[in-house]
């Protein structure tokens, strides 16, 4: 194996990891600022200019807190839970194309860690694994409320995975490939998939809210019924990991939605820009556009959280199985028929 290849990938992984952590960190700050904005308050403004250092102060606080492991809990699994939550949150970034390839000194560097030909399914697999962190943590706490919450999380994730998978199938009928790189390249310029799959996108984003346990689907963290949720017994940075994993999940699912439906790093007029600024700056502008889309989605996540109240559990199940799933199946069938007709004539 080429040693420069390994170094190149290692640097890319390190950068992506760092960026996801920083974005997750500042998402906590953004969440408070957005909440404050929507509720006509100021939000955090003490630590640094406009409260910019608030996430650092929060992180420091998390690390300094006393670490409590409940006596009758399962010590190993109690520690594995948050770690697993973080791991599954982070590994999804590996297949996302962050930009078109950069050419530096005759060497083409793709801005994607790996382009496996089942990239969409890989994302789907990571999503289906993400429930383990919550389940193991909730069970190992040896607390009835944590267990109930963990089981809620599991059944919610499984239910919404079905509709999510079906909405992806309709998308795959349009794109004809499972590789994320090819999906993005197929949306060159303004041919974004959301124009061809509007219903599929709406289904996908609703399921993404449910999979990331964000409001209005944050039933695993339903304080009024479950004390705190699956992390009731957690303290210090272990609790921090769970909260942090939620923000990383939000970032990754925003990136996936931008990639699958909103053209990834493509934007109208990109060829003209690429021609005029060269093969290094051009792709980086594309990356900046992708991040702008991601931030827009993260803002949307927060906007919804502070606007819509939480569902009841039966409403959640009703929505998942009796509304989203039939709609997703209808979407698959309609897409199939339309494609067949278009290809015929």
């Amino acid at each position, binding site marked *: 194996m080429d040693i420069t290849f390994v170094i190149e990938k290692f640097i890319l992984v390190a950068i992506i990891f760092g960026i996801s952590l920083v974005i997750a960190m500042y998402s906590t700050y953004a969440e408070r600022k957005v909440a404050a904005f929507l509720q006509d308050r100021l939000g955090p403004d003490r630590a640094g200019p406009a409260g910019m250092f608030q996430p650092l102060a929060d992180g420091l606080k998390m690390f300094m807190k006393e670490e409590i492991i409940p006596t009758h809990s399962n010590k190993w*699994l109690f520690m594995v839970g948050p770690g697993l939550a973080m791991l599954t949150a982070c590994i999804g970034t590996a297949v996302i194309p962050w930009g078109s390839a950069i050419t530096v000194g005759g060497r083409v560097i793709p801005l994607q860690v790996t382009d*496996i*030909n*089942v990239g969409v*399914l*890989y994302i*789907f*697999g990571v*999503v*289906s*694994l993400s*429930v*383990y962190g919550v*389940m*193991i943590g909730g*069970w190992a706490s040896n607390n009835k409320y944590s*267990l109930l919450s*963990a*089981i809620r999380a*599991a*059944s919610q*994730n*499984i239910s919404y*995975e079905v509709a999510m998978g079906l909405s992806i199938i309709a998308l795959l009928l349009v794109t004809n490939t*499972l590789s994320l790189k090819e999906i993005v390249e197929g949306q060159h310029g303004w041919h974004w998939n959301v124009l061809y799959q509007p219903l599929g996108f709406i289904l996908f984003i609703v399921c993404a809210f449910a999979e990331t346990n964000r409001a209005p689907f944050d039933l695993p963290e339903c304080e009024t019924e479950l004390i705190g949720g699956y992390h009731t017994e957690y303290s210090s940075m272990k609790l921090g990991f769970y909260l942090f994993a939620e923000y990383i999940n939000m970032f990754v699912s925003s990136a996936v939605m931008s990639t699958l439906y909103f053209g990834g790093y493509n934007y109208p007029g990109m060829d003209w820009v690429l021609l005029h600024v060269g093969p290094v700056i051009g792709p980086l502008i594309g990356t900046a556009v992708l991040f702008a889309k991601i931030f827009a989605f993260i803002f949307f996540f927060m906007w919804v959280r502070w606007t819509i109240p939480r569902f009841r559990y039966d409403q959640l199940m009703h929505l998942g199985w009796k509304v989203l799933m039939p709609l997703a199946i209808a979407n698959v069938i309609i897409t199939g028929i339309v494609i067949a007709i278009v290809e015929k004539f």
Partner: protein
Amino acid sequence: MGTSVFYLVAFLSIFFSLMVIFAKNPVHSVLYLIVTFFTFTVHYILLNAQFLAVVNFIVYMGAIMVLFLFVLMLLNLNKDNEPLKSGLVKVVGIVAGCCLVVTLIGSLKATAASNPLVLQNANLGLVKNLGKELFGPFMLPFELSSILLLTAMVGAVLLTKKEKV
């Protein structure tokens, strides 16, 4: 390189399968089983069957084992409410285990070593080729197995219905 990776992963598969049996706590058993399935996924990748690998990942690790874990967590099995096994059951277990070992050794001795398997197309496991095979020559068995799954689904829904049908 390839063979040593295979032996390492194969060792891990067997090790974690044994841990599934030897773990005292049923929830630990299931967690070891999940790790075992993960090693199977690695095996599929080593065989260049990426589609099977990722489907194994999604279906077994992501869905079926979550349901296993779900049920076991709710049952809350532990030492206090474990049914007592009498001495007779243990003796019967030992005898049955010995019989199984004898049968396995006998059948292993009887089989001749097969010729090394040569893959006709090394890229058969990639999703494009697999799809062409499944929807081409193997269309009928593929569709029939979907009917099997549908039957199982209808059966499961019927079982959960409380009223008499």
